[in-house]
C-alpha cells in the first residue's frame, strides 16, 4: 500500500454506478446470451422427472386411488399420494388448509391427488394416465353469495367464509347531498409469468433432508411449509433460488415444492419437475374475482363525505392469502381521497373455483376499479370535471384512512394528478399501418373510430400489514477490496440485485460488488411482494453496508490515528471532517470486514371489530391517464397512450423504475381489455396462451412517465416501492377512456362496470345504444 498516490490528489471523487444512476443489471449479460440459468434449466445427474395427477372435478369425494398400474409401468420409480405425506398434509401462507394431496375430497379442478416420478417426462405422462381415481361427484359451491348466506354445506372443515371484515367510521347514518352507487365486477386474472413453475430436489447425504432449487418469491416461508409437510426440522430443508422467470404474486404460494421434495426423499434420487402452461394455470393462485357494490355521498360541490361498500372476493377452494387480500381491498375503499365517514363490509369466501391469492396489486386493484368508477359517476352527478373532483378530494400527508390510520408518508396525490394531466397527449399518427386502428391486422375498422380520454388515481399500501413482524436480512463482506452481498431476497426479474449493487457502491465507496448464492443459509428476506424489497431488503443492505463502513472507519482511525468521529465515506474516499484522507479501496486492502443486519419496518396493528387500527406500514400514490380509440360497432379497442405520474419517493435506478412502470401498465391494460380466466361449472376453459390473452407488443401503447420524487423520510434512502402502484389505476383509467369515447359516439349513458371489457359489452350494450348495421 502506498499513500503517495492519494496524498497527491486529495479531492473527493464520486463512485460510479451508485444510487440514483441508470445502472445496468448485473445478470443482464447472461440473460441476453442465453446462459442465465432459470430453474427449468437445471438438471442433475441421475435425475427423475415428476408429474402431478390432478382432479378433473371441482368437487368430488375420493372413493379410491389405485396406483398399481402406474407403479407397474417400466421406468416409474414412485407414485405417491396423501398416504405418503410423512408430516402435516396441509400447507398455506396464512392457514394450513390446503392438502399436499387431496384426502377424501377434491375441491377444485386441478387439485393434486398423486404424483409420479419416472425416468423421463414421457413415462411420467403415461404413468399419470394410469393412476385410477374413483370419484363420487358432488355438487360444487360456485356462487360466492351462498358461501356468505350459509345456504351451502361447508365444503371444507374450516367453513365457507374465509374472513369477514367490517369498517365503520364517523357517522354511519350520514346522507350526502349527492349520492351515486354502482356494482362492479372484476374478472379472475392470472399472473402469466413466462417462466413456468420448475424445481429440482436432491436428497441430502443421509436421505433425511432435501436440497431444493426452485423459482419462488420467499425461500424461508417455502422452507417452513415444506419442512412441516415433510415432518423434518427446517434445517434439513435447504432452498436455493433458481432463476425466476417472473412472479407477480403467483409464486408466493407452494405449488410443486412439496411434491418434488417428497419424491426425492421417497426415491432417494434427484427429482426434477416443470409445469406446462396449462398446468401452471391450475397450479398457482390467481387474482381474486370480485363483486363490489359502492355508494358514495358527497356535498353538492363534490366534497366526498361518505363511502359505503360491500366487497365479495371469491377465494376459491383454499385460503392462501385471501384474508390479507380482503383487508387490503376494504381498507383502500376510499381511494386516495379524504373521507370521514364509512361503512364497509368485506367477505372473502371459499368456493370450488380455482384458489386465489396474491397478484400484483393484492386487493387494491379491485378496490381501485370500483372507487375510481364511482369518482367518475360522482363527477357526472356533480357536473364537475373528473380531474377537478379528484383534486378537490385529494389526500395529503396527515389525512386519515377510513381505518382511522393517519397517513404519515409523503402523499403527493394532487401533484401526481396534475403532472399526469400535464403530460403531452399523443401526436397524430404519422404512419399508415394496420396496427394504428382497433382490430389491428384483422382489418375490421372503418371510419367510425372514436377517441376517448380517461383518468384514475390510486393509493397502494407498501409492505406487510396487520401487525406482522416484517423484516429482511442482509450480510455485507468486504474482502480484498471487493464487496460480497448475501441475502435471501428473491430476484424475480424486478432488479433487486441491481439496486443492492448500487447501494453497496454508494455506502462503501467500492466499485466491485459480487453476489453470493440466494438461499436459506442466511436469515429471511421476506417475500418479493407487496412492493417491499427495495424498502425492506434495500434497508437491510444499507444497514449491513453501514455496519461495515463503521468497521472500515474504525480501522482507518486506528491505522492513521485519526479522530473516529470525523471520519466518513464520501464517494470513493474516506474523509476526515470533509477532507479526503484515503481512498476506500486502499483503506480496506488486506482487511476483512463483515456485518449482518436485519431491517424491520415500523410496527403495525391489527384492525378492531370496526375495522379501526394502524394496520398498514406506508403508502404510495399514482395517477394514470389513458387515451383509447374505440370501434363502437364492434366493441374493439386500441389503447393509444398511457400517461402516468408516480410517487416513487426517490428513483434509486430510473431505468428500473421505468421498467416497473411500463410492465405494470401492461398488466393493468391486460385486465382492462382482455385478461380473464373463464370457468364454467368450476372447469377452467382457457388454460393456454391461445385462449388466456395477455397483451402483445402490438397491444401496448407508448407510456409517458413523470417520476414524482419527494424522498420519503420514513424510507431507507427515501425510496418507496414501485412494483405494484403502476398496475392499479391504469385499469379504471382505460375504462373511463372507453366510456368517454362511447359518450362522444352517442352510444352509452351508463358507465362500464366490468373488467375485462368484452367486445359485446360495448357492441351489444343496452341502454343508450344505437348500434346499427355498420357505419
Amino acid at each position: 500500500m502506498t499513500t503517495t498516490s492519494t496524498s497527491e490528489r486529495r479531492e473527493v471523487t464520486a463512485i460510479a454506478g451508485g444510487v440514483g444512476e441508470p445502472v445496468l443489471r448485473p445478470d443482464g449479460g447472461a440473460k441476453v446470451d442465453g446462459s442465465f440459468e432459470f430453474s427449468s434449466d437445471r438438471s442433475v445427474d441421475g435425475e427423475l422427472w415428476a408429474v402431478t395427477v390432478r382432479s378433473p372435478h371441482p368437487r368430488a369425494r375420493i372413493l379410491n386411488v389405485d396406483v398399481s398400474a402406474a407403479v407397474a409401468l417400466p421406468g416409474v420409480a414412485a407414485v405417491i399420494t396423501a398416504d405418503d405425506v410423512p408430516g402435516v398434509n396441509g400447507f398455506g401462507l396464512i392457514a394450513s388448509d390446503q392438502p399436499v394431496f387431496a384426502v377424501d375430497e377434491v375441491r377444485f379442478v386441478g387439485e393434486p391427488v398423486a404424483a409420479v416420478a419416472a425416468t423421463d417426462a414421457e413415462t411420467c405422462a403415461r404413468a399419470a394416465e394410469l393412476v385410477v381415481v374413483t370419484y363420487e361427484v358432488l355438487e360444487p359451491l360456485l356462487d360466492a353469495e351462498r358461501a356468505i348466506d350459509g345456504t351451502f354445506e361447508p365444503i371444507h372443515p374450516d367453513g365457507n367464509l374465509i374472513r369477514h371484515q367490517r369498517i365503520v367510521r364517523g357517522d354511519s347514518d350520514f346522507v350526502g347531498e349527492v349520492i351515486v352507487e354502482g356494482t362492479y365486477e372484476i374478472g379472475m386474472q392470472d399472473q402469466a409469468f413466462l417462466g413456468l413453475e420448475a424445481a429440482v430436489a436432491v436428497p441430502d447425504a443421509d436421505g433425511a433432508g432435501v436440497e431444493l432449487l426452485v423459482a419462488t418469491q420467499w425461500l424461508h416461508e417455502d422452507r417452513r411449509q415444506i419442512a412441516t409437510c415433510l415432518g423434518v426440522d427446517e434445517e434439513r430443508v435447504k432452498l436455493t433460488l433458481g432463476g425466476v422467470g417472473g412472479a407477480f404474486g403467483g409464486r408466493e404460494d407452494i405449488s410443486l415444492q412439496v411434491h418434488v421434495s417428497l419424491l426425492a426423499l421417497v426415491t432417494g434420487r434427484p427429482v426434477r419437475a416443470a409445469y406446462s402452461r396449462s398446468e401452471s394455470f391450475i397450479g398457482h393462485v390467481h387474482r381474486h374475482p370480485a363483486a363490489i357494490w359502492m355508494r358514495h355521498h358527497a356535498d353538492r360541490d363534490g366534497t366526498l363525505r361518505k363511502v359505503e361498500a360491500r366487497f365479495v372476493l371469491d377465494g376459491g377452494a383454499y385460503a392462501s392469502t385471501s384474508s390479507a387480500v380482503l383487508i387490503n381491498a376494504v381498507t383502500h375503499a376510499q381511494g386516495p381521497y379524504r373521507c370521514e365517514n364509512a361503512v364497509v363490509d368485506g367477505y372473502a369466501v371459499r368456493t370450488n373455483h380455482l384458489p386465489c391469492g396474491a397478484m400484483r396489486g393484492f386487493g387494491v386493484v379491485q378496490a381501485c376499479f370500483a372507487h375510481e368508477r364511482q369518482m367518475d359517476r360522482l363527477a357526472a352527478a356533480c357536473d364537475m370535471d373528473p380531474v377537478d373532483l379528484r383534486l378537490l378530494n385529494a389526500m395529503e400527508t396527515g389525512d386519515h384512512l377510513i381505518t382511522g390510520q393517519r397517513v404519515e408518508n409523503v402523499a403527493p396525490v394532487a401533484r401526481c394528478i396534475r403532472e399526469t394531466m400535464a403530460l403531452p397527449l399523443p401526436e397524430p399518427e404519422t404512419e399508415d399501418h394496420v396496427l394504428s386502428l382497433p382490430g389491428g391486422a384483422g382489418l375490421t375498422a372503418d371510419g367510425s373510430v372514436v377517441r376517448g380520454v380517461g383518468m384514475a388515481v390510486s393509493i397502494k399500501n407498501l409492505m406487510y400489514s396487520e401487525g406482522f413482524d416484517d423484516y429482511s436480512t442482509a450480510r455485507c463482506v468486504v474482502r480484498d477490496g471487493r464487496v460480497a452481498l448475501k441475502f435471501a431476497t428473491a430476484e424475480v426479474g424486478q432488479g433487486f440485485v441491481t439496486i443492492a449493487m448500487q447501494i453497496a457502491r454508494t455506502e462503501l465507496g467500492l466499485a466491485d460488488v459480487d453476489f453470493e448464492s440466494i438461499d436459506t443459509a442466511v436469515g429471511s428476506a421476506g417475500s418479493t411482494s407487496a412492493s417491499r424489497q427495495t424498502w425492506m431488503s434495500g434497508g437491510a443492505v444499507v444497514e449491513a453496508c453501514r455496519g461495515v463502513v463503521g468497521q472500515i472507519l474504525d480501522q482507518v482511525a486506528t491505522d492513521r490515528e485519526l479522530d473516529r468521529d470525523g471520519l466518513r465515506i464520501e464517494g470513493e474516499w474516506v474523509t476526515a471532517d470533509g477532507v479526503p484522507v484515503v481512498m476506500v479501496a486502499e483503506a480496506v486492502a488486506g482487511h476483512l470486514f463483515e456485518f449482518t443486519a436485519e431491517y424491520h419496518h415500523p410496527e403495525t396493528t391489527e384492525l378492531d371489530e370496526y375495522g379501526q387500527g394502524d394496520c398498514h406500514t406506508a403508502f404510495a400514490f399514482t395517477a394514470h391517464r389513458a387515451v383509447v380509440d374505440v370501434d363502437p360497432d364492434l366493441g374493439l379497442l386500441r389503447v393509444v397512450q398511457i400517461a402516468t405520474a408516480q410517487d416513487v419517493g426517490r428513483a434509486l435506478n430510473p431505468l428500473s423504475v421505468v421498467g416497473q412502470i411500463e410492465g405494470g401498465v401492461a398488466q393493468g391494460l391486460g385486465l382492462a381489455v382482455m385478461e380473464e380466466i373463464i370457468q364454467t361449472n368450476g372447469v377452467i376453459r382457457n388454460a393456454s396462451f391461445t385462449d388466456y390473452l395477455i397483451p402483445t407488443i402490438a397491444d401496448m401503447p407508448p407510456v409517458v412517465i413523470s417520476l414524482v420524487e419527494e424522498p420519503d423520510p420514513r424510507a431507507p434512502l427515501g425510496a418507496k416501492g414501485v412494483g405494484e402502484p403502476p398496475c392499479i389505476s391504469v385499469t379504471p383509467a382505460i375504462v373511463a377512456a372507453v366510456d368517454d369515447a362511447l359518450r362522444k359516439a352517442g352510444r352509452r349513458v351508463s358507465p362500464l362496470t366490468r373488467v375485462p371489457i368484452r367486445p359485446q359489452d360495448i357492441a351489444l350494450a343496452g341502454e343508450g345504444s344505437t348500434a346499427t348495421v355498420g357505419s
Partner: protein
Amino acid sequence: MKRVETECTLTVNGVDHAVSGLHPGESLLDTLRERCGLRGSKGACEEGECGSCTVLVDGEAVCSCLTMAAAVSGRSIVTVEGIGEAGAADLQDAFLRAGAVQCGFCTPGLIVAADALLTRNSSPSVDEVREGLAGNLCRCTGYGRIVEAVLDTASQRREQP
C-alpha cells in the same frame, strides 16, 4: 428419400450434434434443451403462442416447440447461443442497455425474432417492429424498452454498416 428413425444430426450454430433416443414427434425445443445441452431457448406455452423458443431454421424465425426435430435434420439452425456470433451481438447489447431485460425468460426468443426482423427490414418503423415481434410475449417489461432496443440497433447499423 431421407429417413430418420430415433437418431439424427442437427446442425446448430454451425456445429453438428448427433442426437439419439428421439421420442416420436419430439419437438426441436426439447431436443435442443435435453439432448444438445442448449438450454437458452425457452418453453412457455407448448403451442407457438409465446415465442420464447424462437430459433432460426435456414434463416427463418420459427417456434422450435412446433418444429419436429427429426424433420429439420441437415438444415441450419441458429439459437440464442449462436446469434451473437451470427451478427446480433449489437442487438444483445442494445437489449441490455435499453432496459429491455427484466426476468429475461422471453429475452432469448425475442432476440432471435428481432434479429430475423432486422434481417428482413433494416429500417423498421415502430409499428413494423410491433407487428414483427407480436409473436413474442413478455410479461415484465411492457415492451417499451424492447421497441427502443430494436430501433436503436437498426439506427446504429445504418450509421455503421
